[in-house]
C-alpha cells in the first residue's frame, strides 16, 4: 500500500496506479495524522521544558500538574540568572568549547586534506584508527585520563578539558571534512597553481572557500558536542567557579530538593544557542553525513 502511494502521485501517466487514488489519499491523510502525533510526542519534552520555565512557582510545586499554565512569569529566569556562578559557568563553557573547536578544526582540516588528497602508506590504517577510537567508551578513558591529568596538574584547569574535547570531536570532524575535500576536483587546485599560485595560495584562494561550508558544519557540530558534554567536565573540574554550564545545572538540586522552575529556566537558556546552531547546520549536516559518511 505504502509504496504505490508515493510512486503514483509522482507520475500522473501511470494508469494502473491511478485506479488506487482515493485509497491513496486516505492513506496520506492517515500518515499525516500519525506523523503529527509523533511530532507532538517528540517535541513534548521541549514544550514542557519551556512551559515549566515560564510557570509561576506555585504551579510547579503543585500535586496537580496541568498541560497549560494559568499565567506566565519570568521569576524562574530571574532566580536562575541570580544563582551563584552563572556568569563564570558561561565563561567556562565558552572558553573550553571555542578553543577546543578552533584547535580541532585546524588539526582536522590538515588531516582531512592529507587523507582526501594523497595516497600514502598508512592512510587506511589512520582512518580505521579514527573510526575505532570513536567507539571506545568514554568511561574506559576516564580513569587513565583523570590520573594522567592529575599527575600533570591538569585537574581544575581548562586545558585538560580542552584537550579532551578537541580530540573527541577530531575523528568525526576529519571524516566529515574529508567528504567535502574529495568533492573538490583536484584540477581546480592544479589550474590555480599553473596560473601562478603557490600551494598555500591555491589552498587559501581555491580550496578553502569551497571547504568553508563543510568546515562550518563540522565546527558547529563539534561546538554543540563540547557545549553539551557532561561527564568529563564533572570529573575533571571540581572548582565551583570553573564549572561548565552543564555541571553548574547540578547546583539547582540540593539536599532539600530540586528547584525545578529555576532548573528549567536555566536549561532553557543553555539550550537556546544549541537549538539555533542545530537549525543552521541541519541541512549542511545531512549533506556532510551523506557525502562524507554514507557515500564516501
Amino acid at each position: 500500500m505504502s509504496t504505490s502511494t508515493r510512486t503514483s502521485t509522482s507520475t500522473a501517466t501511470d494508469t494502473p496506479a491511478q485506479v488506487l487514488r482515493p485509497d491513496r489519499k486516505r492513506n496520506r491523510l492517515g500518515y499525516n495524522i500519525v506523523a503529527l502525533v509523533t511530532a507532538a510526542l517528540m517535541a513534548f519534552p521541549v514544550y514542557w521544558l519551556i512551559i515549566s520555565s515560564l510557570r509561576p512557582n506555585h504551579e510547579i510545586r503543585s500535586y496537580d500538574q496541568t498541560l497549560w499554565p494559568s499565567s506566565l512569569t519570568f521569576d524562574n529566569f530571574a532566580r536562575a540568572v541570580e544563582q551563584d556562578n552563572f556568569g563564570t559557568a558561561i565563561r567556562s563553557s565558552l572558553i573550553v568549547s571555542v578553543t577546543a573547536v578552533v584547535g580541532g578544526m585546524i588539526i582536522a582540516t590538515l588531516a582531512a586534506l592529507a587523507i582526501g588528497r594523497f595516497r600514502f602508506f598508512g592512510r587506511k590504517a589512520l582512518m580505521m584508527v579514527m573510526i575505532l577510537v570513536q567507539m571506545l567508551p568514554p568511561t574506559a578513558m576516564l580513569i587513565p585520563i583523570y590520573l594522567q591529568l592529575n599527575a600533570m596538574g591538569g585537574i581544575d584547569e581548562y586545558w585538560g578539558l580542552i584537550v579532551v574535547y578537541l580530540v573527541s570531536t577530531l575523528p568525526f570532524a576529519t571524516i566529515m571534512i574529508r567528504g567535502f575535500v574529495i568533492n573538490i576536483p583536484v584540477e581546480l587546485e592544479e589550474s590555480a597553481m599553473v596560473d601562478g599560485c603557490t600551494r598555500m595560495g591555491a589552498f587559501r584562494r581555491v580550496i578553502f572557500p569551497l571547504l568553508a561550508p563543510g568546515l562550518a558544519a563540522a565546527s558547529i557540530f563539534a561546538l554543540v558536542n563540547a557545549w553539551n558534554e557532561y561527564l568529563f567536565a564533572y570529573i575533571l573540574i571540581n572548582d565551583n567557579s570553573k564549572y561548565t554550564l552543564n555541571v553548574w545545572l547540578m547546583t539547582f538540586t540540593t539536599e532539600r530538593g530540586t528547584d525545578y522552575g529555576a532548573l528549567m529556566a536555566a536549561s532553557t537558556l543553555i539550550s537556546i544557542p544549541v537549538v539555533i546552531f542545530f537549525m543552521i547546520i541541519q541541512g549542511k549536516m545531512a549533506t556532510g553525513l551523506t557525502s562524507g559518511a554514507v557515500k564516501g
Partner: protein
Amino acid sequence: MTAADTKAAGPPPVPVPRGPEVTGPSSPAKDAKPRARRQRKKGELLPYLLILPAILAIAAVYVYPLIKTVIMSFQDMGRAALWGNGETPWVGFEQFTNILGDPEFWQVTGRTVVFMTICVVLTMGIGLLIALMMLRLSTWVRLVLTVALIAAWSMPLMVAASVFRWLADSDYGLINTLLADLTGNEDWLGHNWFLDPWQGFGIITLLVVWGAVPFVVITMYAALTQVPKELEEAASLDGASAFGVYRFVTWPVIKPVFTMVATLSVIWDFNVFGQIWLLRGNKPEPEYETLGLYSFSKAFESTSFSQGSAIALITVLMLSGVAVYYLRQLIKTGEVE
C-alpha cells in the same frame, strides 16, 4: 548497487605530484619530468606532516590512556598510588579473576546487555518506521515532524535528563498526574518510579530512545531518498506487494546505512552513562549500575582505579567485536577506501 554508487561519488584521490615553490609562467609540459621527480619526495612527506598533529592528539587522549588502562588492570592502584605514596604493586590477573568471579559483575553485565538490546531494538524500529513514514507525508507535515525531531535532538543530554526527572517526579511530576487522571486511581500521585528498577529503567529507556530516534530518522531518511524510484515503480507494476517492494528493492539499498546506525546504537547504548547518572541524582543505587557506572564507582568511589580499569577493559573487549563488524561494514560501503 552501493559499491558502484560510492565509487562514482568522488574522484579517487590520485597521488599527483604538485609543486609548491617552483611555479611560474614556464610551460608545464616542457620541464615536467625533472620537476615531477623532485616533487615526489616532497609529496611523500607532506601528507605525513599534515596528519602528524592529529596522530599526536589521538595518541595522547586515546592510545596512551588505553595502554595505561591495560597496564593498570594488571596492577593494584588505589588512593595511595594516586597521591604518589609508594609503588604500585603488580598483581597479574588478580583483578580480572576477582571481577570475573564476582556475581555482581555478571549481574551488571546481564543488566547492561538487556538494557542495550531493548534500547537498540526500540530506537531502530521506531526510527525506521518514522523514516519510512516521512516519505509519504505532505510537505508541510514532513517539515513539522523534522522541526520536532531536531528540537528533540538538539537538547543537551543534561537538560533532557532534567526534564525527564521533572516529568517523572513522584510529587510534582506530570506522568503521575496524567496517570491518576486517566485511570481515576489516586494512588499514582506520589508514586516513585525509581523504587522498582524495572520501572526506573522504563523511564531511562524512554529518555534514551527519545534522544536517539532523531539521529536514526534523519540518517535513514537520507538513505531512503537514495532508493531509485523507478525500481520501486517497476516492481509494483510487476505486481509486487508493498512488502515485496520494500523487502526486495528498498531494503537492499538502505541496509548498509541501517547496519551502521544499528551498530553505532549498540555501542552508544552499551555505554549509557549520563542518562542513568543524572536521573538518579548523581548517586545511582547499585541496582541501577550498568558496566560504565560500575567501573566508575569502583574507580572513584571505592578508589580502586585498577578494578575500574579492568572493568573498562573488559567492556572494551566485549564491544570490540561490534567495532570490527562496524569497520567491515564501512569498508564494504567504500568509506575507508
